[in-house]
């Protein structure tokens, strides 16, 4: 059994190392939490906009930020087979570099999605773009192509009829690549230097839009990755399965960690798990926390979730007890973007561009401001440089009062 102190230390280290960055889907720890302060809480199409940039195609991915560089993907063309990897100046929105590839895999997806659905991830050595077509490219931060893989070329039965959207994550020198499809289906660790497989394990042949979760266990790390019928954890170093939990997945939202707790979305809501020897056991279940397309947010003593229609629910982290819920959706759109938080303020957006900033915690919901960016928002925003980087389906807003 691992002590809570060592868990806390590990998580603190991860947070500290990534301070000010937003290097992957849902931020440094994949939980939607930023340690930034001074991010605007009131803004609109003409208010507190530091810059706005157009993208060369449709994107439902999130931007990622490393220092003064923002990275985002897009896909264009009538068959959405032109893939774009972009780097923008974080302060001005100027495109610093733009690389293109031709999709080598299938380009089918729901009209709401895009081949640019997985979110890239970035570290000091490079930025890693995975597309729904299973094209995977690594660039250095200056846009030099370090390596490229056509995963459909490597594994021809990889399928993509429904718009694969699971994002890769980084652990040490490994890029963890989720590729759950009805054809070839696998989870792989690919070395970030030259793009070769370190380990690759078979996964159930089924569709899956979930992004894996990195969970630190003392000096080890494991990858928690739900499949349609159950959830598995794998040793990040070897790919060896460490535990399995037989619960049906929620298909889209990813799990998040908090200390030694694992908050796992399942098809009946949200489940809190804790380690017990070499397995995970249930602490509580919150049936109301069925969040649809969005992932849960854990911040301080509470867990937050927002459903498709826009009811934001606050749940006590220790007990799973409902604290408050507030219908913040205005009925204009559905929620695909996951909630994120900085400096005590939760940011939510629906696909009509309507957003709300809500004070975290408290006994009752307190909506600080409502926003209407009048643009389709599908991807989860990023927070860095005292700014929000909000992706629209064809552009990117940087919201920040002053340059950091």
């Amino acid at each position, binding site marked *: 059994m691992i002590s809570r102190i060592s868990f806390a230390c590990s998580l603190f280290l991860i947070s500290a190392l990534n301070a000010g960055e937003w290097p992957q889907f849902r931020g440094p720890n994949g939980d939607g939490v930023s340690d930034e302060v001074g991010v605007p809480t009131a803004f609109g199409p003409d208010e507190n906009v530091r810059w706005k940039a157009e993208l060369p195609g449709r994107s439902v991915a999130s931007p990622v930020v490393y220092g003064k560089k923002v990275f985002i993907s897009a896909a264009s063309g009538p068959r959405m087979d032109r893939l774009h990897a972009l780097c923008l100046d974080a302060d001005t929105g100027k495109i610093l570099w733009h690389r293109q590839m031709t999709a*080598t895999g299938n380009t089918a997806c729901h009209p709401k999605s895009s081949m640019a659905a997985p979110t890239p991830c970035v570290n000091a050595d490079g930025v890693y773009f995975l597309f729904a077509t299973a094209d995977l490219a690594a660039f250095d931060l200056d846009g030099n192509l370090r*390596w490229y893989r056509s995963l459909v070329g490597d594994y021809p039965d990889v399928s993509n009829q429904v718009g694969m959207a699971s994002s890769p994550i980084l652990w040490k020198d490994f890029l963890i690549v989720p590729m759950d499809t009805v054809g070839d289906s696998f989870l792989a660790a690919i070395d970030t230097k030259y793009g070769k*497989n370190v380990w690759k394990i078979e996964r159930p042949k089924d569709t899956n839009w979930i992004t894996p979760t990195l969970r630190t266990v003392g000096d080890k790390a494991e990858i928690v990755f739900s499949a349609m019928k159950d959830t598995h954890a794998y040793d990040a170093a070897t790919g060896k399965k460490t535990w399995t939990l037989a619960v049906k997945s929620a298909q889209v939202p990813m799990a998040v960690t908090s200390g030694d707790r694992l908050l796992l979305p399942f098809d009946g809501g949200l489940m809190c798990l804790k380690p017990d020897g070499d397995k995970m056991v249930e602490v509580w279940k919150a049936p109301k926390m069925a969040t649809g397309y969005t992932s849960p947010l854990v911040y301080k003593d509470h867990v937050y979730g927002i459903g498709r229609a826009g009811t934001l629910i606050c749940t006590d982290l220790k007990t799973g007890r409902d604290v408050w819920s507030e219908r913040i959706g205005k009925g204009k759109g559905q929620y695909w973007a996951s909630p994120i938080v900085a400096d005590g303020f939760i940011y939510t957006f629906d696909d009509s561009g309507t957003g709300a900033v809500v004070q975290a915690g408290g006994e009752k919901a307190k909506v600080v401001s409502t926003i209407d960016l009048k643009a389709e928002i599908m991807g989860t925003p990023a927070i860095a440089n005292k700014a929000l980087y909000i992706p629209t389906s064809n552009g990117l807003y940087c919201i920040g009062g002053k340059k950091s």
Partner: protein
Amino acid sequence: MRFAVVALLTCVGLAPAANLEDANKLIVQLKAVAKEGAGNQEAGAAWKGLVAIGGDAILPTLNAMDDASPSAANWLRSAVNAVTEKEVAAGKKLPAEALEAFLNDLKHDPSARRLAYEVLVMADPKAPERLLPSYLNDASGEMRRDAIAAALKKAEKLAGEAAKKEYARLFAVVRDDDQAKTIGTALHKLGGNPDVVSQFGIVTKWQIAGPFDSPKGAGFAGKALPESKVDLKAKYEGKEKAEVMWKPHVVEVDPTKFELDQIGNVDFNKVLAKHKDAVAYGYTIVESEKELPVEIRVGCINAVKFFLNGKELFAREEYHHGSRFDQYVAKATLKAGKNELLVKVCQNDQKEPWAQLWQFQARICDATGGAVPVKNVTPVN
């Protein structure tokens, strides 16, 4: 091929021989990439070297795309992006004349020509106006699409017979479903007779056999009797021991509709009645006067296999994840004379309302998606 590039570049006075030699050595490394990341280490270094050469590397890199694998083509494409970006940032001139010559040389790979065009447009923003009218029937789908889009803007201003003639001209070269719908609808309103089936090579004349049993999807891997040998006079034991025989089926086409994914679908639920855990076959004959490279393109929401002259071309075991025009593409060669196309479609046992379709669409076309000179005949029992 390398000599041709050298000659071209020397003609326009662009690339010192040393740069060309260096570029070609580096390109070899990029084209050597193989499966599972093999060659990535060398290619990464070569990519950087190639980009460092600058503008002199553009034409050799485009030329190298002609016979590159899809993976290598992406290494090369992104190198052209990087070089171009660097040259523009440095205020250097892009080799417009050589790029236009490359674009106009139809022997080059269509995607490489398109990339040359995109770089050319950066150097010469007026190039589209000058060049696009001659690319209406181009091998590059993107060049063709842009050319048709430009022509459509002009066609919208025409009326009467002039408009009808122009829309008919555009319909004869259109490939993309959205443009086909726009042009087909307009032409029909003008009194024209756009024939989608002929234009896109959609197969409408079939023999159908089924249903055969497919418990828990076993029929996908298994072989019902028609799959081993098609005998149009045979009687088979089908699902629930019912007798199954081949029966002719001609798909009706509404000449006023131009949604390509809706045209020519063989709907087994209508032709055979609704069945679950079932397999059905469509069989047709295509006559070609000569050996002919083609693409067989199939759209199917169910698990599907298709065979040409007894050889399996494609298989995908996937159910109810959507279907679309040209969903699955397989390259093949028709022989002179009669060719047999067999399509196997498996239905599963999903109960959801959205999981009830059991159908397919097939067409035979060239690499651009245009019809080929073949005759689809109804096989006779």
